[in-house]
């Protein structure tokens, strides 16, 4: 099983490239304190130093004289942290709800699905803005807001998987063998439902990073954290003078999100499942 996965994954060049970029981002995030010579908030130089002109400032400085390169590295930490935590929360919530709805069916399913549909109907981004604004911007509120907005598609996917897997004959055979419901869910249904969940998880980290950066751009980021979105937002007023302050962080976001999406597609190929969760 595993060798087949690696073989299929390797064939997707985009996915392989994506893995490299993600490793780079991850290492940058972990090693930030050692790689950067300056704290990203420190005013180290004159404002608006163009990239490549100063030995110490690879990517130039921003409107307040802060080092853009340091900002990028520390920003990677924020993105990785928030992306992973928010996705984990959304997955826990979505998988839990979806599994219960899909396995038990009946009125439980109907009730939970109405609930999910409701959340899905609310415009996600606007809701996230409102949530973070009301509960004051901080890492906790941002992570919770993103999780609350992202879980419905997971729940629907998991419910769909459980509904179809429940009807499969090997589940009926397991019931005849006398296995309890819990054991059937964990040994038969979940392992077959995991591949599309993994693929979706990868895509969700991508959308979480996009969402977090958009929130930071609007000024709703945690005021103590230098995030990529914040950098782009801060660069808005001085766009004409210092294009690099806006371009580099945005580029970082784009490359990270792109890599995550490509890796997600590679996982879908490797695990032999489709992006929307249906079996090939």
């Amino acid at each position, binding site marked *: 099983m595993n060798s087949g996965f690696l073989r299929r994954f390797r064939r997707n060049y985009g996915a392989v490239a994506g893995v490299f970029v993600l490793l780079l981002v991850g290492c940058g995030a972990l090693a930030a304190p050692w790689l950067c010579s300056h704290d990203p908030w420190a005013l180290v130089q004159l404002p608006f130093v163009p990239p490549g002109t100063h030995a110490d400032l690879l990517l130039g400085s921003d409107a307040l004289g802060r080092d853009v390169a340091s900002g990028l590295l520390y920003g990677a930490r924020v993105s990785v942290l928030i992306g992973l935590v928010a996705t984990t929360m959304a997955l826990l919530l979505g998988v839990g709800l979806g599994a219960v709805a899909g396995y038990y069916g009946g009125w439980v399913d109907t009730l939970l699905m109405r609930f999910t549909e409701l959340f899905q109907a609310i415009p996600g981004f606007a809701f996230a803005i409102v949530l973070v604004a009301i509960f004051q911007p901080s890492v906790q509120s941002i992570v919770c807001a993103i999780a609350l907005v992202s879980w419905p598609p997971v729940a629907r996917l998991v419910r769909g998987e459980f509904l179809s897997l429940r009807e499969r004959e090997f589940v009926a*055979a397991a019931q005849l063998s006398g296995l309890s419901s819990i*054991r059937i869910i964990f040994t038969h249904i979940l392992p077959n439902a995991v591949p599309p969940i993994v693929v979706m998880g990868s895509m969700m980290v991508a959308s979480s990073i996009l969402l977090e950066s958009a929130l930071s751009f609007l000024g709703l980021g945690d005021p103590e954290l230098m995030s990529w979105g914040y950098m782009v937002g801060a660069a808005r007023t001085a766009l004409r003078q210092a294009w690099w302050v806006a371009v580099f962080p945005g580029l970082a976001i784009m490359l990270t999100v792109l890599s995550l999406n490509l890796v997600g597609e590679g996982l879908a190929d490797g695990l032999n499942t489709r992006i929307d969760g249906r079996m090939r």
Partner: protein
Amino acid sequence: MSVPVLQVQGLSVCLPPGSERELAVDGVDLSLNAGETLCVVGESGSGKSMIANAVMGLLAKPKVAPVAGRILFEGKDLVALDEADMRALRGERIGMVFQEPMTSLNPLMRVGDQIGEVLDAHRSLPAAERNARIIAALRDVGLPDPELIAQAYPFRLSGGQRQRVMIACALVLEPTLLIADEPTTALDVTTQAQILALLGELQRRKGMALLFITHDFGVVAEIADRVAVMQWGRVVESGMAQEVLRAPKHPYTRALITAIPHGRPRRNDESTGVPLLVVRGLNKTYRSGGGFLRPGRQVHAARELSFTLARGEALGIVGESGSGKSTLGRLLTGLIARDSGQVLFDGHALAPELRRRPAAKRALVQMVFQDPYASLNPRHTVGAAIAAGPVAQGVPREEARELVVSLLRRVGLKPDAADRFPHEFSGGQRQRIAIARALAMRPQLLVADEPVSALDVSVQAQVLALFEQVRREFALSMVFITHDLRVAAQMCDRIAVMHRGEIIESGMAADVLQRPCQDYTKALIAAAPRFDLNQPQVPGQ
């Protein structure tokens, strides 16, 4: 002697690199005259459908394409023809009908328009005449109220009706050749008989040639003038149908013919007469849809079902799709809860739902399912699948391991199969594994739900033989669910015929087959493609 309508000479079709063999079709010769029916028979993977697609030019070129030979249609070589000329022939001179009626019509287009577009593609007709021809085509294929059907969308029609529409599309321009690729395989026995009769009548009236692809020798016996038997891309035997059926020369043909269920009732009767299973007044209704103010749809899948099964006996439940036979199987095993009624096993009542039955009782009734590809978890090894039940009952792992090995031997597989995964096995082998899994629970009653329907003919006979053997060795009672009367007659002591949720007739197998009382039973028997050329036809005279 006129030029044959279709002549295939030395045709070879290649497959994409990396396929299990290089050539799907290897040096095939066929010949078909006007007014004649040629049946190409073979199992799955024989290449028979490829020939049909090659004639129509529907192969997935360039990966799958003819690499040698000629296909002469009225003297013209179709392989050498370019796409535009081929298009002119399709629908006008050569018509084709496919296997799956439920998915072969555009769901968003009205039936009449789907026939009309054939006319539009090849002719330019004034509106009135075009509509008249559409209605006439629908009437020709025996559809009632053709004006209404022409305005309807496909979802309103049954499988048999959709197949008739497909035939209407294929024949509206009166082609000289009709290719039918397993057109009745997905249909019920009675519907199949109607479609075959329709095709025969249309052929006689229009004098067209019919190339009929099938895997069922019974169909061959009914309609074929000539037959060609294919195996692994080659024609192993061909000739006049009557001769080939009466005296097959090639070992493969002989194997195929002997593998067909003969439908002769069993002679042995291992029944002890002691009642094991007593079913009284079983009811199950499925409700779907429905909302706040609207009633949903109701399907009475089981109506007041009552029967008795003696220890050691095999009862066959025979019915077409929608008769409720599968529901009955699941009600007996407890996978579905009954609405009302009683099930007594060895004198004790069985709870409606599997979950409510005490652990000891759950093993008593086990099931073998229809689809060998869906009944085994693809991520568990074969050994784990078989041992799952005993281990859940508390059997220690070592003992379970020995049980697995012994069961694998009994069903004809090597012990090393225990460490392999289901996808490494063929359909027939997987059914053997499924039987081993059911046996691991030491049941007293085995319910088999269409266990051989999804298998090739040659493999079917082997698995049925395995059921017989297992039944004797383990002293099992059986409920054998099938749509095929011949299989039921061969395997079972008694037969119960189901129709729309009710048991309309039951009795000893021989009696039901040779002296049926109910009209529906008689229709079922008459519709089954008959095959016994050396035997008196069933129902016997």
